[in-house]
């Protein structure tokens, strides 16, 4: 599984970070950082849950 951001969509809510802190990190003054663009197998479900909770659908999952 790989993750990417849709350009310009992140609005910095940080719900992804709350749901999946090992995958997403939201700095104060920037868009979310994806800590593992290529997601380790044991973190895939967490990564998907974090992507699904984004209210602006900013996170893309590539399988």
């Amino acid at each position, binding site marked *: 599984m790989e993750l990417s951001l849709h350009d310009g969509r992140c609005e910095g809510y940080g719900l992804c970070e709350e749901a999946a802190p090992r995958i997403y990190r939201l700095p*104060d003054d920037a868009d979310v950082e994806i800590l593992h663009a290529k997601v380790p197998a044991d973190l895939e479900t967490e990564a998907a849950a974090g992507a699904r*909770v984004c209210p602006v659908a900013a996170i893309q999952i590539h399988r």
Partner: protein
Amino acid sequence: MTPPGVVVVGGSAAGVAAAEAARRSGFDGPITVIGDEPHPPYTRPALSKALLRGTAGAESVHLPAPDAGIDFHPGRRATGLDTARRRVLLADGEALGYTGVVVATGARARTLRRGACGETVLRSLDDAIRLRETLRGARSALVIGGGFVGTEVASACVAAGVPTTVVTRHALLVPHLGPDLARLVTREATDAGVVLVRSHAEMRLVGGERVTGVVLPDGTALEADVVVTAVGCLPNVEWLRGSGLVHHGGVLVDERCRAAAGVVAAGDVARVRGPRPARTPFWTAALDQARVAGEALVRGEAAPRYVPAPFYWTEAFGLAVTIAGPIPAAGHRETLAGSLLDRSGLFRWRGPGGSTVAAVNYKIAVRKLRALAREGA
């Protein structure tokens, strides 16, 4: 024919999240999600914001597709639940057997007329696309309701250059945000040219196949090219008639979102037991409930309880507001950064139900917003 497994009724964000939670909790049988809308899961809160304003296209609201191990069927509607024989009955005549079922059929827009005859509402992706089209070329708009959806729709109308009137019981968002933030939103709305008409009682809609205006109890008649009804939502429970699961207009569930043996519910359709059982038709509540429901279906008592963690946001008239904690924000206001007058900052209220923190045009992660609310408790 596949053996019975988990059937999720409802193909929105909550339905899919519940399905993935069931899988994550160790359920290795078939999982089927059915939804009556023709679309893959999408984010509903975005409909009344970027999509309606036209700054984003329809594809921008689509959420990641469900995991490959989940059988997703859009465009299929459930018409009944037979809990004795553990079957979900579908409009197309098929019956899906289940070992466990997730009720995630959500809610629909409440309307003022029976059957919504001629009324325009904003609830689904199709509603939003249609309304966006209608606003192009409209010379006037009338929005009935000053809640989150009504306020955001009015903002989109103004952004589209359409002169807009809002008929509302209170000033905009008073029961939702509390007086301080509501005053700010209302001021920005009127500065943007919105005409607010206050009406406390039921009004009468005018027009047949298409509503063209309203008559207020005092006889005032208001007309517009576009009339949008935004007066809340009603849970989709009619298909559960006879199941014994519906209480006071919602599916009553325990703190693990369980409604009955083999039945869980999550999202806008669910009422969680507690001192004041109520539906909480908001994004994070729906997704949190979905995760609990999916896990409880598989692990029962071993699943964690649902703990409400209120988080809300709205965008209207140049204001982006995010809120952690109980709403409406009430009590003494403390300014943590910026100023309300400058329409930017961080604010905290200590109310009877706990501490509420709001960020106005101020970027802050939900994690930090919640921490500020806890500090203020």
